[in-house]
């Protein structure tokens, strides 16, 4: 063993792979050599964890007695990935694996570096009691969180890979004992049939899984709370997670699910009932109040008792246009204000709300562009639409409000009630993965756990 080559030739496959990825600066093809023994590493510098690579892959090579030992060592690594095809190798390399060649054999070992595995605080659905940590942006961390909270052997996790350009993993999580097989089948089928170029978040996936192009009400629920996930797993629902998104999707869902806050489980019975009633009251208020105003002012002022009718009419003295324009005008400004305060940086949004809410409101009444009562209604509507715990539902209800308003404007009080019944009918006729969206659940203990009943 004297004639050691100065620089051994890398295997042909590695050369080919490297040339396919050139001219990226971060492609590394490194020979490891100790006396007659040689190994080669091929990886992308920007995706792998340098420390791990050094400690787990490189260092042992020089500590082992022979290349045979090293091969045995690599083979028994827990992070090893089965090699299926050459394209698969390329894909794995871009995800953060290292291709190792020892003694004419190739191994793929996962040494990816994840920068987004830190668990975030709950932002969308904060609770006072309850857990404060949400999910992270790394799917493995998220699965770890779920496993940690739901220690049942019947918890099953399937990983599917998206066919889009991100090649992200999608985890389908369910409790084998409670899940409905038909729903699971539909979900698997829909994911496999997906044909879109780019999916970057759970929200986007939800859009494509809906099955319809134009949807108003969400048929999957987006959540960031691990406790909500476990609660729904127990109820027999399916959870979907996308790598790189700090949210999980819950399917199927019914309307009442969107009215449940996780806080409800952590409070005393009467307090929970009270907040629940409050929430439904908010829902109804934010849906019907603007339309009701138009119906009463423009069509049937005689509904109210005389004193009240006079007060309302009195506050509208000097307003130069019909009630529906007034309502529409104020509502649109309120929506603009909400939208602005969400999108603006925190430092400016306070100014926006003050200027918009206080100054605009006062000035509009003083200029007799709207009545005082309209300002009260708009603020009541704005506040009550925030009472709905899940944001998506709140958006949908906000939209429905305008449909109801239009119907009332055209048809008056009868249009108001009929429009309300129509929205109800629309919800009832809707389905989420074969489950009726809105119906009375008398038999189940909780509405959210109603998926399994009849």
């Amino acid at each position, binding site marked *: 063993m004297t004639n050691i080559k100065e620089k051994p030739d890398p295997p042909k496959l590695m050369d080919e792979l490297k040339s396919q990825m050139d001219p990226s600066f971060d492609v590394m093809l490194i020979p490891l050599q100790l006396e007659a023994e040689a190994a080669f590493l091929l990886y992308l510098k920007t995706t792998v964890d340098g420390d791990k690579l050094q400690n787990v892959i490189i260092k042992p090579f020089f500590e082992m007695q022979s290349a045979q030992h090293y091969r045995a060592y690599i083979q028994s690594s827990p992070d090893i990935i089965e090699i299926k095809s050459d394209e698969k190798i390329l894909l794995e390399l871009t995800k953060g694996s290292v291709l190792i060649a020892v003694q004419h054999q190739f191994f793929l070992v996962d040494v990816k570096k994840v920068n987004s595995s830190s668990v975030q605080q709950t932002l969308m659905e904060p609770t006072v009691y309850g857990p404060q940590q949400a999910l992270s942006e790394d799917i493995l961390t998220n699965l770890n969180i779920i496993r940690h909270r739901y220690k049942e052997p019947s918890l099953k996790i399937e990983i599917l890979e998206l066919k889009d350009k991100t090649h992200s993993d999608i985890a389908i999580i369910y409790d084998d004992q409670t899940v409905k097989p038909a729903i699971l089948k539909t979900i698997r089928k829909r994911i496999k049939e997906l044909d879109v170029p780019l999916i970057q978040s759970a929200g986007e996936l939800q859009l494509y899984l809906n099955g319809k192009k134009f949807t108003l009400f969400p048929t999957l629920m987006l959540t960031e709370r691990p406790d909500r996930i476990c609660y729904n797993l127990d109820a027999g629902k399916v959870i979907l997670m996308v790598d790189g998104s700090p949210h999980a999707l819950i399917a199927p869902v019914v309307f009442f699910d969107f009215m449940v806050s996780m806080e409800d489980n952590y409070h005393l019975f009467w307090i929970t009932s009270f907040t629940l009633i409050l929430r439904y009251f908010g829902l109804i208020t934010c849906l019907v109040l603007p339309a009701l105003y138009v119906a009463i002012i423009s*069509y*049937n002022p*005689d*509904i*109210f*008792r*005389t004193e*009240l009718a006079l007060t309302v009419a009195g506050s509208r003295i000097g307003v130069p246009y019909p009630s529906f324009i007034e309502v529409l005008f104020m509502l649109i400004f309120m929506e603009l204000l909400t939208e602005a305060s969400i999108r603006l940086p925190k430092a400016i949004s306070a100014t926006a709300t003050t200027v918009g809410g206080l100054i605009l409101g006062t000035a509009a009444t003083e200029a007799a562009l709207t009545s005082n009562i309209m300002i009260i209604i708009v603020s009541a509507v704005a506040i009550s639409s925030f009472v709905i715990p899940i944001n998506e539902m709140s958006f949908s209800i906000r939209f429905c409000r305008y449909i109801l308003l239009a*119907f009332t404007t*055209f*048809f*008056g*009080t*009868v*249009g108001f*009630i*009929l*429009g309300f*019944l*129509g929205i*109800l*009918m*629309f919800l*009832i*006729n809707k389905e989420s993965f074969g489950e*009726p969206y*809105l*119906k*009375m659940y008398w038999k189940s203990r909780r509405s959210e756990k109603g998926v399994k009943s009849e």
Partner: protein
Amino acid sequence: MSRFLYYFIFLTMFSNIIASVPKILLFESKKGAIPSMIAAVIIGTLLVYIIVKLFDAIPGKSLPEMLKIHTPKWFAYPVLFYLFLCWFTAGLITLITYVFLFITFFSPETSIVNTTFAFVLVISFGVLMKSRSMLYMAEIVIVLFVPLIFFLLIKFFANPKLDWDFIEISMMHANHLPSYSAFGAALYIFVGITNLVIFNKLFTKKHKMGWKQLLIIGFTGMVVLFTTYFVPIGYNGFEQIEDFTFPWVSTSDSIRMKYGLIERVIFIFILSFLGIAFVSLLLHWHVALKILESIFEFKRLKWKGKMLAPYIFVIIFVVISLVLTRKLTQYQLFVFSSYFYESLPIFFTVLIISLVIVKRRAKL
């Protein structure tokens, strides 16, 4: 018995108040309305029992399907067409009566076409829904509106203006022979169960139909009918009661709520019965549409894989109701609906005979 069957029955029972039933009953008040009501409760409960039992024999199937399989064409199609006419008329009467009532008491300035259009717009979306959704819709509307109706009933009965002397006077007229038209009108409140003709498709389990269920139905029917008949008399007196066009609505306007945001009960009355009337109309027209679809199967009329026939039928429904609400007068409507109510015994006979024939032919 599945809870949805009760909903069918109760919805029609409640909706009778805003249909022409009270008007006809009160019109016949001196010609034997009370014995006709008693007869209608007994016979109506019996009919409900017979129909539920007969439908038990064909679980999970709708009547049009069974008729087409087991009976000759010359029998099946005329029967189906007659049934369709009955259901369509039932819905039409509810619609027109309600629109008239709304125009008269709620918004006299709005044009009648506008109000009718608001109705048919929502209804035509509704009747095209899945049959299963109908059941849930019925349930939710009952949950939302029946508490209001109970509140109103308490108001009606607790009010000191309700004069029991008038009711006692009207009781004096119990010794007449039953009148046929009052009997037909009273029988209307038991019509709800016949919606099974289509909805039987959704019920695969046998219905438990014993004494308890019969008593519930009979007793509720009794209470509803007697409330329908006696409350307007109690408020308005016995002598002139037959001249009222909308006896119940006029009655409800005589009650005030001293401390409420809404002072006049009539508004709550009309709006809560709007919900009930709406669902009853929805059920009737859905059944009518399904029967019509089973008669005329235009398989060629397709667009992007969707059957167009139901949409065409719904447009026809809409046009008919728009034309009729404009053409009819209150009096014509009254005559028209009393003919319909008088034909109800025939309707029940035809339905039961065809069910029996299906049962025989299918050897169930």
